[in-house]
């Protein structure tokens, strides 16, 4: 019973976080100087001028821009609880539609990047930690270097080297598997540096623990010890980081999608912010926040699976 209550509280809190994120976005966008109807008229005509009240009236009427802000917000909130994210001002279709189409490619991109980053980080850690000064040094240097790489720069360089010059990958890859390789790497390489650094620190600490010596004395192979005992503990902080990383990846995805001309939520977001398409921006934030919350729930589960001590909520 207690367990059920705890889960209920957790879910309620998560929903609150999601709705709050969307609400903050809603109000932040109202703080943007300028008038939404004017922006829409200018978008529709490619102008940058003022319009007469008469010209703006139909838009104000249609989207309720003239209503008190509180009323607009309540209207939006009411929609949210009915599962309606509103209608895009610019694309004239439901926001759920706008986002729905663009979400899968972005999710695939970020999740793939997270997986690849994990593989790279783990590989690097297993192979180089405490393997002598040279290898260890190389490993940390590599991690520090990759963690310092700006996404966009990696993207541009990868694109030019591997797609334009060597022609190993398509330039306009869209969402095809082969075309996704470079965008995924663009996001994964810097992240792998981060995860690697954290895992390495922990790995070194754990290797010093007595149970490691015990395991070794039982005649376990070095790799066996590393994988079965040490890794298990060493990945915990990095797993925590993964929840955070997913948020960071969404930011990186905006840039990556831009460089590789890949469809996704990032492109939609930048356009929507620029055109003051308030429901779309709020909707995207809502979805990203939801993904973040779910990811962190998963992190908790992974944590418990890896470290049974934590299963009973010792955190």
């Amino acid at each position, binding site marked *: 019973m207690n367990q059920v209550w705890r889960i209920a509280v957790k879910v309620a809190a998560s929903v609150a976080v*999601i709705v709050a994120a969307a609400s903050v976005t809603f109000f932040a966008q109202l703080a943007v100087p300028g008038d939404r109807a004017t922006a829409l008229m200018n978008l529709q005509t490619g102008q940058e001028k003022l319009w007469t009240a008469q010209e703006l009236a139909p838009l104000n009427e249609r989207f309720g821009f003239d209503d008190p802000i509180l009323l607009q917000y309540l209207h939006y909130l009411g929609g949210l609880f009915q599962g309606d994210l509103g209608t895009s001002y610019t694309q004239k279709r439901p926001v759920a539609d706008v986002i729905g189409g663009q979400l899968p490619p972005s999710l695939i991109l970020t999740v793939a990047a997270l997986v690849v980053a994990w593989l790279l980080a783990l590989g690097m850690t297993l192979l180089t930690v405490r393997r002598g000064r040279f290898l260890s040094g190389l490993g940390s240097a590599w991690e520090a270097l990759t963690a310092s790489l700006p996404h966009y720069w990696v993207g541009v360089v990868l694109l030019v080297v591997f797609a334009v010059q060597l022609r190993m990958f398509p330039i306009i890859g869209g969402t095809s598997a082969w075309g996704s390789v470079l965008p995924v790497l663009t996001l994964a390489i810097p992240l792998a540096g981060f995860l690697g650094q954290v895992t390495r620190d922990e790995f070194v600490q754990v290797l010093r623990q007595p149970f490691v010596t015990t395991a070794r004395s039982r005649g376990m192979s070095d790799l066996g010890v590393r994988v079965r005992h040490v890794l298990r503990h060493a990945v915990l902080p990095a797993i925590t980081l993964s929840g955070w990383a997913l948020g960071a990846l969404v930011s990186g995805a905006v840039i990556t999608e831009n460089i590789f001309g890949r469809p996704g939520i990032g492109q939609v977001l930048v356009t929507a912010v620029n055109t003051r398409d308030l429901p779309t921006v709020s909707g995207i934030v809502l979805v990203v926040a939801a993904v973040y919350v779910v990811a962190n729930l998963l992190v908790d589960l992974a944590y418990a699976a890896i470290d049974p001590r934590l299963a009973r909520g010792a955190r």
Partner: protein
Amino acid sequence: MSALSWPLRARAWAWRDRLPSLGTTLSLLVVGFVVIAAIAPALLTDRSPTAIDLTSTLLPPSWQHPFGTDDAGRDLLTRVIYGSRLSLGIGIGATALAFLIATVLGFAAALSGGAVDAVITRVIEVAFAFPALLLGLLVITIRGPSLATEIIAVGIGSAPGYARMVRGQVLAVRQAGFMEAAAALGHRRLPIWRRHLFPNAMRPLVAVVTLGIGQSIVWASGLSFLGLGVPPPSPEWGALLDAGRLHITTSWWLEILPGLVIVLVALSVTALGRTLQNRLGGASR
């Protein structure tokens, strides 16, 4: 948040640890160079970062122009040198802002406890669920692109992560034995906080700050790359990258060299931060 344990593990300091390693030395050199460039760029070059010369545009790197020239004939190395004040300033300014916000929130949450703590923790949680880039975009659309905007955008974007750390540190330190001892000795709360809690909670975060500066530089250049950074003709590094992007297949130096500089500086600052972290012992994320 596993490593936020306090007191930190006691460590045997071998004499070797006291000498800076090769990596640290090189990092110090790079950072020192950039700091000089930021404070007194004229010491390093006698050219002007905005002086145009339409007779020598798009020249590849040479002795005369070690980083080549751009399409207005400006010397790229000079621009990179003058840009370090901006980029470093944004890095430091944004990190400072982020820490200021984080310290206020973190301390308030940890020390108040109860409902206040719950609310602040939720706020941090909400901010965390926000993609940092979106925060940046929103700040920029509200304020318009400028140096201050970029600092605010990056600062606000990275504050929640730090706030969480500060709160964790304060909670950990508060439960430490010496705090209870001080209270038991009848010391008043405020002096205890000032003398014990604050320094002990913040010390491990010094290294994190250093790490944050490197990341802020990278982030700020990301905003500039989206064309949302410091207005031209400022040679902020991200703006240089943005300008070089179209040239990458024809005049590679315009994109590659400023990029390498950002990586090198971020790497050096990070390396120093980690050295510091090892010396002080301390908080990772």
